[in-house]
C-alpha cells in the first residue's frame, strides 16, 4: 500500500523523468513517509446495525457498533481468506483432487468471523459439516485445511478425517451426522460449567438440522441445567434442496427454543453478528442459561459440490444476494466510505490472500498421502500397541497412538 502511494506521489512530485530512475522512489519516500503515515485513515468509525428480532427478551444487542481500522482489516482479511479458500476447494474438487463430500461456506463468512470476534480462544465451538470456515477461525492454517481436503498426511487430521472432520483446540469439528453436534455442544457447555472457568460453548446447526428431535431434547436439558451454551442456527434458507418453507412449520428459528430467549441476526453483516454474539455470550457467562441466535445468511454454492444449487433456487436470487448482501463487499464499502481503509489497501490484502491460498494449494496437491501404516492408528487412546485386522486374516496393521 505504502509503495503504491509513494510511487504515485513521487511521480507527481518529480514528473515523468522519475520513472526512469528506479532509486528515485525510495529517496522521496524517506521524506514523505514521516509526515503522511496513514493520515488518510481514521482509527475507528461507528455504524448503525440492524435491530435484532427478540424472543423472550426485553432488550437486545446494541443497534450501533464501533469498528476500529485494525479490526476491520483483520475481519476483511479473514473473510477474504475463507472466501478464496472455498473457491480454491471448488476448483480442486472439479479437478478431482478433492473427493467425497465438500460443503462450501462462501457467502456465510460473516458468521464464522463475526462469532470468533466476540468470543475468546478459550471458549468452545462445535458445528456441522459446512466447517472449513470455522476450522480456519479456530486456528487451523489454510494449508492444513486444504491438505486435509486433498487427503494428505499434512492435513490437520493427517488425511484421516476429510472435509467434515477437522478439529482444533477448543473446536470439536466438523460433524457429519445432522444435528448430532448439538447435544455434543451442550455436553461441552456442561463441562464448562463443571470446571467453573467462565467458558462457554457455541453450538451451531443449520436450518435443516433445526427440525431434529435431539435438538429439542438438548434445549430442554440446557435450559433445565442452565448450561452456558449459545445455540446458533445458521439459516441459509435451504436444507440441501429443501427451502425453509417446505421443511418447517415455523421458520422463526430463533423462537423455536421456546422457553430459551432468542435473537434473529443479520448474518451477512459481520458487525451485527459480532454484537449479537457478545450479547449472547454475556448472558451465558452470567449463569442465566442458554440463548438461541438465528443468523440469517446465504450460501452461494449448492449444498455440496455434487449440487449445482440451481434446481431449487434461481440464479437471479443468488445474484441478488451477491450484489446486495455480500458480507465481504458490505465490510469493504463500510471501510472505504468511512476512511478506515482504501480500495488499494484492500486490494493489496486480496493479493496477499491469493498468494497464501496458492501456496497452500500447492502444498495440498504435492504433499504425500498418509503412509499405509496410518490406517491402523488412533483406534484407542493410551493403549499399548496392538494388531488391527485388514481386509483379510493375513493383512494386519499395527495400531499405535
Amino acid at each position: 500500500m505504502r509503495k503504491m502511494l509513494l510511487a504515485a506521489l513521487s511521480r507527481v512530485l518529480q514528473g515523468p523523468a522519475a520513472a526512469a530512475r528506479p532509486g528515485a522512489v525510495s529517496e522521496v519516500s524517506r521524506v514523505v513517509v514521516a509526515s503522511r503515515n496513514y493520515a488518510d485513515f481514521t482509527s475507528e468509525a461507528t455504524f448503525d446495525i440492524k435491530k435484532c428480532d427478540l424472543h423472550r427478551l426485553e432488550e437486545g444487542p446494541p443497534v450501533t457498533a464501533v469498528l476500529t481500522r485494525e479490526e476491520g482489516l483483520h475481519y476483511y482479511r479473514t473473510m477474504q481468506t475463507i472466501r478464496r479458500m472455498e473457491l480454491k476447494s471448488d476448483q480442486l474438487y472439479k479437478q478431482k483432487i478433492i473427493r467425497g463430500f465438500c460443503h462450501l461456506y462462501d457467502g456465510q463468512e460473516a458468521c464464522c468471523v463475526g462469532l470468533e470476534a466476540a468470543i475468546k480462544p478459550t471458549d468452545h465451538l462445535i458445528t456441522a459439516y459446512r466447517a472449513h470456515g470455522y476450522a480456519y477461525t479456530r486456528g487451523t492454517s489454510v494449508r492444513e485445511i486444504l491438505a486435509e481436503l486433498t487427503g494428505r498426511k499434512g492435513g490437520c487430521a493427517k488425511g484421516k478425517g476429510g472435509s467434515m472432520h477437522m478439529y482444533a483446540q477448543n473446536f470439536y469439528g466438523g460433524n457429519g451426522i445432522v444435528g448430532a453436534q448439538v447435544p455434543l455442544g451442550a455436553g461441552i457447555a456442561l463441562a464448562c460449567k463443571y470446571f467453573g472457568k467462565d467458558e462457554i460453548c457455541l453450538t451451531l446447526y443449520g436450518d435443516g438440522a433445526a427440525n431434529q428431535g435431539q435438538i429439542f431434547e438438548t434445549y430442554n436439558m440446557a435450559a433445565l441445567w442452565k448450561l452456558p451454551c449459545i445455540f446458533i442456527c445458521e439459516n441459509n434458507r435451504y436444507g440441501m434442496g429443501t427451502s425453509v418453507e417446505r421443511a418447517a412449520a415455523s421458520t422463526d428459528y430463533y423462537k423455536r427454543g421456546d422457553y430459551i430467549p432468542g435473537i434473529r441476526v443479520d448474518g451477512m453483516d459481520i458487525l451485527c453478528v459480532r454484537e449479537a454474539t457478545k450479547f449472547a455470550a454475556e448472558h451465558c457467562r452470567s449463569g442465566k442459561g442458554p440463548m438461541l441466535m438465528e443468523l440469517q445468511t446465504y450460501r452461494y454454492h449448492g449444498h455440496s459440490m455434487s449440487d449445482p444449487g440451481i434446481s431449487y433456487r434461481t440464479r437471479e436470487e443468488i445474484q441478488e444476494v451477491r450484489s446486495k448482501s455480500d458480507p465481504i463487499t458490505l465490510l469493504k464499502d463500510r471501510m472505504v466510505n468511512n476512511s478506515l481503509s482504501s480500495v488499494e489497501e484492500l486490494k493489496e490484502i486480496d493479493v496477499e490472500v491469493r498468494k497464501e491460498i496458492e501456496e497452500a494449494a500447492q502444498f495440498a496437491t504435492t504433499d504425500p498421502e498418509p503412509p499405509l501404516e496410518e490406517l491402523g492408528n488412533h483406534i484407542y487412546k493410551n493403549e499399548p500397541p496392538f494388531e488391527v485386522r485388514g481386509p483379510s486374516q493375513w493383512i494386519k496393521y499395527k495400531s499405535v497412538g
Partner: protein
Amino acid sequence: MAAAAGALRRLVRCGPQQGLGRLLQPRSGIHGSAPAAVQVTVRDALNQALDEELERDEKVFLLGEEVAQYDGAYKISRGLWKKYGDKRIIDTPISEMGFTGIAVGAAMAGLRPICEFMTFNFSMQAIDQVINSAGKTLYMSAGMVPVPVVFRGPNGASAGVGAQHSQCFAAWYGHCPGLKVVSPWSSEDAKGLLKASVRDDNPVVMLENELMYGVPFEMSEEAQSKDFLVPIGKAKIERQGTHVTLVSHSRSVGHCLEAAAVLVKEGVECEVVNLRTIRPMDVESIEASVVKTNHLITVEGGWPQFGVGAEICARIMEGPAFNYLDAPAVRLTGADVPMPYAKVLEENCLPQVKDIIFAVKKTLNI
C-alpha cells in the same frame, strides 16, 4: 455325603449361583475360601466401583434416568447422590439421544462421564451418539480428540419383560472399531471392569445383566481393594477342563458352570472360559483352550445371526486352533425370535443348562 460336599466345594470355588450363595457363609470353613473374603452381590460390587471412582477422580460423574434421587432404577447408584450431590450425580429427562450426546460432548471437553442406560434397549435411540460421536472421533481426528466415556446398564434378557426389553447388544456394539465392549458375569468382574472402564481413556460399553444384580459372589480381599481392576481385553478361565471348551459371557457363564458340574459326574471335564470382554476379544485364550480340549462350544444370550459365537467360530477357523478341532465348533444362542412373554416360551428362547449338556454330549459324541 462326602461326594456331595466335594461337589459343593467345586461349585463354590467357581462362584455360586443365585440361592446357593446364601447357603454358604464365610464363617464355616467348608468351602476353603481365603480368610477375608466376603459375599458381595453384583449390584453392591457395581455400587462400590462407582463410589470409589467418583471419589478418586473429580472429573468422573454419573448421568442417566433415575440415577440420583431414585437411587437408580435398579439401585446400582444407591446412596451416591446423597454423598456426591447434584453436580456429580445427574438425573436426566427421558431423552436418550440428547443426554448421550451430552455425555459424549462432556468427555470430549475433558470430563469422564458414566452414562447409564436404564436398559440397553433404550440405547438404540442414542446409538448414533455412541458409535458415530464416541466411537469414531479419535480416529477421525487422528488422535486429537479422545472420548473417555462409559456407557453402562443392563443388557439382554430379563424375566418376562417382553420383546422390546430383552435384546442383547453385544454383537451390535462389538461390531464397531473404536469402542471397547465389556460384559461382566461375577461381582469381581463387575467391580473390576467398571473401575477399569472408568479409568480407560476410550469409550467403553459395559453390558451388565439385570438378573445378575442380586446374585452374591465371593470377593477376595484383593478384589475388595480400591485399586482392584480387571484388565479389559482378557478372558478368565473360570473352570479348568480337558474335554471341551465352553466360551461364554455374562449370565451364560453361570449356566456353563452348572452344566459342567453335572457333566463332571459323567467324567466329562469342561473348561469354562468367561470372556469378560467382547471387544477387544481375547481370542488367544480361547485358542489355547481349544488346542487343549479339541472341542468348542460358545454360549450366549444374543441372537445367532452375526453374533458373538459366530465371530468366535470364524476367528477359530482362521487361527492355529482350527487344526486341533475334533468336531465342528458349536454355538448356543438365544432363539432366533423376538422374546415372547409367557414363561414357558421365554425359558425356551435362551440356552438352558440342559441345552449346554446336550451340545457337549453331541460334540463329544457320547
